[in-house]
Structure formats: C-alpha cells, structure tokens
C-alpha cells in the first residue's frame, strides 16, 4: 500500500478531537502507512468559499493537492466535505488545462506545482477498497451481531460522483458492506440518503437545520435502531449536537451517533472511553450495554456448541 496522509480538516480538529483519536487508533490497529503532513489549510469549504470567490476556492484546494504532489503521498480523509471539495477541484483542473496553467502560474510563485497525481479518498471507501473486507473481518474480536445500525452516508462521501468515483451516488453500498462485516444489521430506511441539513445552520437558518435532523431521527426512533453510523464531522454535529438541543427542548430520540472509526475500534476490542465515545453529547450507554449483553450470549452459545461438538462428535459446518 502506498503511503498516505490524513487530511483532518478544520471541524474535526477544532470541535471533535476525539474523532481524530479513534481514527488514529484504527489506522494504527491495522498498521497502515500514514503520516501527518505540515502545511494544509482549510480544504476549503465549498459552500463558503466557492460562493464568494470561485478562483480562490480552486486555488486553495489546488495548493493543498500540490503539497501531496511534493510529498508523493495519497490522501485519505475522515471528512466527507474535505474529500469532495478537493476531488471536485482536482477533476476540474484535470479537465481544464487553461485553468490548470493559470493556477500553476500562481502556485509557482510559492514554490509549488499542482499535478494532481495522487489519490484522494474518503476513509470509508478507503477501508472498503484498500484494506478490504476479509482483513477487516480478521481484526474483529467483538462483533455487533444482533445490533441494528442505521447508516447515514453523508452526501459528500459519494457525490459529486464524476469527481469522487467511489460508489454509486444514488445507491451506495460500501459503508453498508463495512457495517455488515462488523456483524451488525444495516437497517434500511426511507430517508437513508436524505442530506443531514447541517448546511442550514451555517447560513443562519437554525430552525430549518433542526427540521432536517428531526425528519431522520423520528424515522429512526420509530424503527427502534440501536445507533446511527456516519463518517462526516458536519453530519455528526447535526445529529449529535442538534439532537441534544432538541432533547433539551423536550423531544426525546435517544439515538447515539457513532463514527465509523468508533464502531470499527469497538469491534476491534478497544475501550469506548479510549476511543472517545464518552465525549458525545448523546450518550451511547444503552447501545454499549446491549452490545455487551449480546456478546456475552454469543460467547455462551459458542461455548455450548463447543461442548456439544465434544460430547456428541457432531461436526459443525
């Protein structure tokens, strides 16, 4: 596997450092060749920078990508927005040589050149495609058998597909495959691909942001899921923080929001508090208790089967 760097983005390091913690723990658990790279800026955030100055949006992203060209490493990010923005600019510059030359004439003045020759990937498709399901299954010591988990993909993990090219943009499967590899049921639901709506919180429309969070959380509450899984700090903010705010106002949902890396870390046997699961605003206590109980039952069943095999000599498949 080629060396890669992690693009943490602004939100994880500013607001949710525990998500960085769980990401590092699983990367190290799989002994993956990653390293930190100095010099990154904001990706930059499309809905903010591109709305105001398209040229600067392209230039800033191109500068971040040029740092990869200089270091000769791929990029992986646990933030959907960062990957989507960088990949969109990458694809725009590959398709438009005039624009690429213009960008490079500016980057040359600070000693950089955009080539865009390294892979830019989100952590979820990276684990699916590069680490692979069999290797993941090998690392799992405490599976989620019997747990019902609802996946929220996050728009920018998969769209725009012409730039990301990592899953079906309207019927994605990779995150589902990973959750199933950890033993859980991936609960299918009507609003699965609905945008989280967090963007509205960034344009002074908090009530509308809550409206979006409520739609999904109400459906998941009715379906009695054990948790929601996602891998985007913005979606995390929407469903953990805004769920907490709505609960304070009286509407109870009780749906813990677990990051992909936290679920994987738990299944690999790491302690919830070491992964930072205790830093969430919506507590995961019920989820963890049920999971522990099911694992006790699972190990008792395994023990029973072992005794049956010994006693009667029945070959188990």
């Amino acid at each position, binding site marked *: 596997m080629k060396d890669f760097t992690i693009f*943490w983005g*602004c*939100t994880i*390091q*500013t*607001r949710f*450092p*525990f998500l*960085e*913690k769980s990401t590092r723990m699983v990367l190290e658990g799989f002994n993956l060749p990653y390293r*930190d*790279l*100095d*010099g*990154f*800026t*904001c990706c*930059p*955030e*499309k*809905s*903010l*920078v*591109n*709305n*105001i100055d*398209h*040229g*600067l949006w392209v*230039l*800033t992203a191109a*500068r*971040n990508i040029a*740092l990869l060209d200089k270091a000769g490493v791929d990029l992986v990010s646990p933030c959907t927005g960062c990957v989507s923005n960088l990949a969109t600019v990458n694809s725009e510059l590959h398709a438009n040589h005039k624009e690429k030359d213009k960008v490079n004439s*500016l*980057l040359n*003045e*600070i000693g950089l050149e955009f080539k865009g020759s390294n892979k830019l990937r989100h952590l979820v498709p990276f684990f699916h495609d590069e680490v692979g399901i069999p290797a993941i299954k090998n690392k799992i010591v405490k599976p989620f058998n019997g747990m019902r988990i609802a996946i929220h993909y996050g*728009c*920018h993990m998969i*769209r*725009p*597909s*012409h730039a990301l090219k990592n899953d079906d*943009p*309207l019927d994605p499967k990779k995150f589902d495959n990973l959750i199933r590899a950890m033993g859980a049921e991936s609960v299918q639901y009507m609003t699965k691909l*609905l*945008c989280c*709506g967090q*963007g*509205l919180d*960034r*344009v*002074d*429309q908090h009530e*509308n942001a809550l*409206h*979006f969070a409520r*739609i999904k959380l109400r459906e998941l509450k009715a379906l009695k899921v054990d948790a929601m899984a996602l891998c985007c700090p913005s979606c995390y903010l929407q469903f953990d923080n805004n769920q907490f705010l709505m609960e304070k106002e009286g509407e109870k949902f009780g749906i813990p929001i677990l990051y992909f890396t936290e679920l994987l870390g738990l299944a690999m046997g790491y302690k919830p508090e070491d992964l*930072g699961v205790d830093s969430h605003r919506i507590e995961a206590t019920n989820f963890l208790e049920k999971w522990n109980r099911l694992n006790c039952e699972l190990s008792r069943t395994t023990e029973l089967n072992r005794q049956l095999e010994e006693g009667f000599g029945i070959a188990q498949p």
Partner: protein
Amino acid sequence: MESLNLKLLEVCSRCGACYHICPSCLNLEGYDPRAVIKDILAGTYEKWLHHKSIWQCLECHHCLEICFQHYGFENAMAAMRTVASKKGLATSQVKRGWDMFIKTSRLGEPMASARKKLNLPEAAKSGAEDFKKLVKIYQEKKKSGVKRNES
C-alpha cells in the same frame, strides 16, 4: 463558478425532474428553484438576492446526479449566492466564516488542551503563511486583470 450556461438553465426551467430528490424541495416550504431560474433567464433576479431561498440549496449534488444534462439547479443557486455576497448580502455567519478563512486559512484551530488530554500528537503545522502570500498574489493579479479589461 465562472459563468452560468443559460441554454442548460432554459431546459431546467421546464424540467424539474430533480424536485423529487432535492432535499430542500421535498422538505422546505416555498423552496422553488425553477422560480429563481425563470427570473434569471428573464433578467429579473434581483429580488432573490435578498431571499432566504438561495441559501437553502444544501449542495448535496442530488440534482446534479440525476440531471440528464449533468447540470442541476445547484449552479443557479450558487450564482445567486455569489452575486448576493458581492453586494454584501451574505448571511452574517457566512461573512464571519469568510473573514476567518481569509485571516487564518482555516475555519478554526486545533484545541491544544483537548489534544493533550486525549494523548494526541501535536497537530501538524498549518499553511497559513504560504496561504496568505498566495492570496496576496492572487488578489493583485485579479485586480490588474480587472483593470486590463476596463481599459
């Protein structure tokens, strides 16, 4: 965005296939991108620059993915936001975010104390200094380009 493709938008104004997948069309009352597009085509879009609708496009790219032109009305909404921002009509959070981005190159700084508590390594250095240099060069080139076009 550099410019809008009015030919594609003309088709958008009569299509609306993406209304069945756009999260804001489905869930926010009064959100109607085709009304905006029709006004853009007629040259009477001024009123939308002050309207909350143009900030309600979530840039989820659903419209882009199902659009047979691979265009989607997200382009029209982004154009309206750009023009609104130029006229100082961006929402206050957008203005704050932009200021922070230009000043620091990021939308926040790593929390040193929390990192220590979590036993995380020191955060990698940001590229703020290089970024500021680049922005200066970019803005100077942009200004001289505008002057060239005017003369």
